[in-house]
């Protein structure tokens, strides 16, 4: 007698949660003012949603020539829930929280 086992005998969660676009939860949108950003990566360090990632140095302007060789950061608005920790922790106040309503209708 043969036993037919299902292909996947134990349920294993395989779908990455990045399918889940949590950006829709946002009330306030953090906006980085790159002309102030000193590329210290503190926002990246404290983001609870891991929604801040690095971008090549030339992607955005930098306030000083000496900083322009360092990578810059970008916020992934697909996942950012808008908690505002980045804006609160930014040492140079380069991140502004803007009410999400102001972006209504903008195609990202």
């Amino acid at each position: 007698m043969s036993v037919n086992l299902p292909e996947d005998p134990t349920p294993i969660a395989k779908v990455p949660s990045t399918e889940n676009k949590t950006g829709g939860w946002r009330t306030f949108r953090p906006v980085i003012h790159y002309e102030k950003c000193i590329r210290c990566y503190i926002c990246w360090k404290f983001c609870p949603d891991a929604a801040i990632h690095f971008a090549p140095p030339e992607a955005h302007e930098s306030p000083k020539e000496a900083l322009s060789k360092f990578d810059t950061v970008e916020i992934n608005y697909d996942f950012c829930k808008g908690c505002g920790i980045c804006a609160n922790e930014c040492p140079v106040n380069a991140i502004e929280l803007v009410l999400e309503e102001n972006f209504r209708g903008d195609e990202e």
Partner: protein
Amino acid sequence: MKKLTIPEEEHMLSGHTACLGCGATIAMRYVLKALGKNTILSIPACCWAVIPGVYPHRTLDVPLLYTAFEVTGAAISGIREALDAMGKEDVNVVGFAGDGGTADIGLQALSAAMERGHNVFYIMYDNEAYMNTGIQRSGSTPMGAWTTTTPGGKKRMYKWEPKKSVAEIMVAHHIPYVATATIAYPEDMIAKLKRAKEIKGPKFFQILSPCPTGWRHAPDKTVEISRLAVQTNVFPLYEVIDGKYKISIKPKNPKPVKEYLRLQGRFRHLTEEEIEKIQRHVDENWKALLKKERCSQEEE
């Protein structure tokens, strides 16, 4: 080019279902950054049982075993012994439980696992109440806090019993490594985890993770409150290696506890005398800790 103070590798994906400004997710992010991909996690009922999302979603890049509330200690012991039997001794086994699942419900399984001396990590992320089920009081809820089961009203039934020191209970188990950490000091937390990784035997971490929902504070203040907890001596950062105490951060001029309390809605009801009482309690604990550190140094 970039200069980073913590590892760049990321094992926690975006899109998880934690509340805005959740401290526990930041804690998990750092733990996985420090321990790397070669890790197996076990999580009981707690906030983190919900955060990875519903089946078939996954948020973590590492294997994860869900267990019942009270058995995290037993589950990690079993995983460890099975891995050892298979010759996979380089895999980190981590129990990641909330304060309810550690200080109250999971205490006996944890105690047994620590006493048996399995080579495991047990990480208690301390959000100071049963936050996942609706902010009920736990043994780890601090003095003076409001929770849904210690409500206010005319009788003022706020929790007045002192917070249980689980880290001290673990020290009493004579395990090789016990440490406290908090999310505002990631470099300190990651250095401790890396140090613990080199030690064979049970390792216990208590990580203070502020909870905007349960502590009733603005979500953007999570890291600030966690930092204030250390600067006011409410939650001192220390490690105990083979019974020897070492305080990691000693604030030069500790801030008054009031600064920590006033940011949180759960302490909003406190009167000046009550704040004074909490201040005295914090000062006593801090002095006792300094004494323990001095004793450890004298022994050497």
